[in-house]
């Protein structure tokens, strides 16, 4: 092993540099440099066109007196929590259900995943028209089916209802993906465990409670983390559905940052919001990598 490495080392270097270079150039130029620039911009006043003026921490101190940013951060927090509470149990139940190999379950799973094929922008536009007060399909059902009369509401126009509408739309958008994760996770559970348990005579519900769910622990962690990051940074579907309105009632944090930056052309302060969003996202994502990827890769590296 040592001899091989020593022999190969001088031969490998020249091509390794050239093989590495394109990925490194792209990554440094378009990911790492922007990270540094974002931090730099958070200390300047700039409208994107004129000169940049260094203003120290004044953008940052503005953050603490900015009621709009505070409210949007709070909204994002509620969205993250509501999404997790609603989506995870439904996705676990659906994932376990369609993990079964019966024909009707295979058909159901193929249909369940259809929403995954539509872009976030497409989802926002589609729902906007389904929920439209003029000729929208949901209001039509509310007006014509007695029991479902509550559906005849102004889901996007009422500041009381619209945030709930967004929570439901985000659930519609993301539950299929998490269901997919749980389906794969459930199928990965060794059947020996179930066979042993069935000899002990436990009921199917107990089987889910004491075998399936505990064995899905890693999937639950992965799914939850992706769920939290996804809700934290969600932009496309909400922007196309409501553009943050009516008023500011659906202006979540990623939208607030976009609006301050590109509608108000306040690049300095928007960068403060971006850095906050980035730090929140990175901290949560690092948890994913630690819990899933890193551990796995280290063990594989040791095997070589």
């Amino acid at each position, binding site marked *: 092993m040592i001899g091989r490495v020593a022999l190969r080392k001088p031969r490998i270097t020249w091509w390794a540099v050239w093989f590495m270079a394109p990925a490194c150039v792209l990554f440094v130029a378009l990911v790492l440099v922007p990270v540094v620039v974002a931090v730099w911009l958070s200390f300047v006043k700039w409208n994107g066109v004129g000169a940049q003026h260094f203003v120290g921490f004044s953008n940052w101190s503005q953050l603490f007196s900015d009621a709009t940013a505070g409210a949007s951060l709070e909204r994002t927090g509620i969205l993250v929590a509501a999404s997790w509470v609603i989506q995870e149990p439904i996705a676990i139940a659906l994932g376990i259900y369609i993990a079964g190999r019966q024909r009707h379950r295979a058909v159901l799973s193929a*249909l369940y995943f259809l929403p995954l094929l*539509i*872009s976030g922008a497409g989802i926002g536009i589609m729902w906007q028209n389904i929920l439209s007060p003029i000729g929208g399909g949901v209001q039509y059902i509310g007006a014509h089916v007695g029991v479902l009369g509550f559906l005849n509401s102004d889901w996007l126009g009422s500041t009381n209802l619209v945030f709930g509408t967004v929570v439901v739309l985000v659930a519609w958008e993301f539950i299929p993906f998490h269901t*997919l994760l749980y389906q794969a996770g459930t199928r990965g559970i060794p059947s020996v465990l179930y066979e042993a348990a069935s*000899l002990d005579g436990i009921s199917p519900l107990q089987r889910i409670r004491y075998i399936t769910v505990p064995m899905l622990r890693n999937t639950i962690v992965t799914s939850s983390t992706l769920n939290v990051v996804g809700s934290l940074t969600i932009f496309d579907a909400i*922007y196309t559905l409501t553009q943050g309105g009516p008023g500011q009632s659906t202006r979540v944090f990623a939208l607030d940052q*976009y609006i301050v930056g590109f509608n108000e052309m306040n690049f300095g302060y928007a960068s403060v919001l971006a850095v906050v969003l980035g730090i929140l996202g990175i901290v949560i994502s690092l948890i994913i990598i630690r819990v899933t990827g890193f551990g796995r890769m280290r063990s*594989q590296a040791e095997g070589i």
Partner: protein
Amino acid sequence: MKTASAPSVSRRVGSGTDRASSSRLAAPRAPSFLSPRTARRGLSLLLALLWLIFAIGPIYYMLIVSFEPQSSYLNSNPWFPTAGVTAANYSAVFAGGFGQYLLNSVITTVGTTILAVTVSLLAAHVIVRRTRGISAVIFRVFLVGLAVPIQALIIPLYVEVLRLGLYNTLLALIIPLSAFAIPLTVLILVNFLRDVPRELIDAAQIDGAGPIRQLTSLIIPVAKPAITTVAIYDALTAWNNFLFPLIFTQSSNVAVLPLAIFNFSGEHLIDIPAIMAAVFLSAAPLFVLYVGARRQIIGGLTAGFSR
């Protein structure tokens, strides 16, 4: 599932002959449509079907409305139209330049996928061969990049795109999308290539194959499944991206589909059937691929995250 439940059924039936045992044993002997097992399955299926209505109801609605005449749409039941079918909405969408947007989306998606997979494959090949030193450090930096949310970097990226003179071109989408695809693409390829036996590469080397020959005649054929999965993931991400075109492009001749349907819906506020036709068409290529290659698409969707 079947093998797991079979013993429990036979055990219950077997002990059911003992009449003195608890009353719950009577249940399996009741008519099958009343047994708790049937009831439970029925309830699960009912809930599963309720979810199905919620999950695909909106897609059904979009498809149905997209074929309804604009004139009768407001006066009839939009869910079950009786006024007849029209393709006029689709003609309106094509007249609005859909062909151009489709082409832009295809160029962006193919360009991003080829660029991201090529540079990542080259890098992954080095990372796997040289597990120490600077390439290991670079790999770690890529992994940290996995965590950076795109949304947080749109202002610096916008500035950079302007300064590089890429603003309002498809390259303004392809280059940043590729850069952001690198971390996950490298990670998946590295995880796969690590399992390629070293002896194979050594043998190729002894046969006089240089690094490029090794890559084209050995690594790429062996890594085809991983390359396919990751290429699908990168392609789906590029196809559906909305934020970059929203910020980096302006004219309709470089608009990709997600942005084009957003603009279209802004211009046709009241023509809901036409908007629905536009949204449906923007996803139609993926629906077609899903029918033809569901396994691969699903694999791409969960790339790197399923366990």
